[in-house]
């Protein structure tokens, strides 16, 4: 599986955010996107899953399921955690697992992997920011999809949770997945290519 972007350009309203961006990521590889605020890191990730229109260039996925779009084979971990405060931790995860097509979801083991197993029946409104992020990460584990698009995945996580995330990402890469992550600092991916936005091409 190979995700390629050729000469990509992004336009938000009147402003040209970036242009001429090239990248290629293969199974088992990771790409980190860095750059100043407003350079278009999040926009590039949202472009990959079709939430933003592609203003120029091409985005292709080779070796994926030809019946499915890129977005349908990808997980997106955005700034917002997509959780409902009135539903319990287990119900939130169970919903996303069910919505993404898992027939019989067992929410327990993904929750255990992110250290939330004891909180499954707690309403998500009571979670801290870091716990909400960990619950979102549990979604990536619960439903297997080959492409992970992570936007500042470590922003609210403590040191132990960051290590845990690094292990999960390594396991995902070892299993043939690919990761594209936007981040300001190192997120624990040992051998990642780096794409810098906002500099003269």
């Amino acid at each position: 599986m190979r995700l390629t972007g050729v000469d990509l350009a992004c336009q938000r309203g009147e402003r040209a955010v970036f242009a001429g961006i090239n990248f290629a990521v293969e199974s088992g590889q990771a790409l980190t996107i860095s750059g100043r605020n407003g350079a278009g890191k999040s926009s590039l990730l949202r472009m990959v899953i079709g939430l933003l229109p592609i203003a120029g260039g091409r985005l292709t996925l080779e070796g994926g399921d030809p019946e499915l779009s890129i977005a349908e084979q990808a997980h997106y971990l955005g700034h917002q955690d997509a959780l409902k405060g009135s539903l319990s931790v287990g119900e939130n995860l169970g919903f996303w697992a069910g919505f993404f097509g898992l027939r019989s979801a067992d929410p327990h083991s993904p929750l255990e992997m992110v250290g939330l197993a004891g909180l499954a029946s707690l309403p998500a409104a009571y979670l801290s920011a870091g716990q909400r992020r960990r619950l979102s990460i549990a979604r990536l584990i619960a439903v297997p999809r080959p492409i992970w698009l992570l936007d500042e995945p470590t922003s609210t996580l403590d040191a132990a949770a960051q290590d845990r995330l690094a292990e999960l990402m390594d396991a995902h890469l070892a299993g043939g997945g690919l990761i594209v992550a936007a981040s300001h600092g190192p997120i624990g991916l040992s051998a990642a290519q780096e794409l810098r936005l906002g500099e003269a091409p």
Partner: protein
Amino acid sequence: MTPLTALLVRDMRIAMRVGGSALMGVLFFLVVVTLIPFAIGPDLALLKRIGPAILWLAALLASLLALDRLFAGDHDDGSLDLILMGRAPLELVVATKGLAHWLTTGLPLVICAPLIGLLLNLDLPEDGALMLTLFVGTPALTFIGLVGAAIAVTLRRGGLLLAVIVLPLTVPILIFGVAAANAAVTGPTAFGTPFTILCALTLASLVVGPFAAAAALRQEME
């Protein structure tokens, strides 16, 4: 669980939790209808004559009450982005959310209507006819409202815009719903004619609503 049943179960759960839209809609309906006899006075003949119109208006406003959060809630917490990444077609997703909204706000109104009709001097067979018109008509209110909810999704105070967009579109439903209910309560026209048109309006909105709302959502996302 298929994606759509997961979505249905989740939306109904949220609506029925504390502070959810299900209880609020019914309470609003009860309060509005209860206030009318106090305002108009104990003129039984008058209450009977305007009763169906009042119940219909209250049902219309009550079903509008929860509509503005239907997509905006999912948009604000990022759920809508993920829903768009699912494998379920957006039109069916939108229709499922509409169904969940109707089951939690429309259907309780239909069930309450006979009880509350007693306050407006409506007898049991008349209540039954009124209930039937609400049962057929409220899905149309929800599914027309879907379009407004989708258009207003990115606005902070979308509720007012939603009302401005949706209320004019619901005028035909109101006319034929009240006409059918009035025909059953006071006569002399036949019940069947306006009721059949009401059914037709509902069927049309069930088809058009999800497609229009999905198109609006796709547009908003760009």
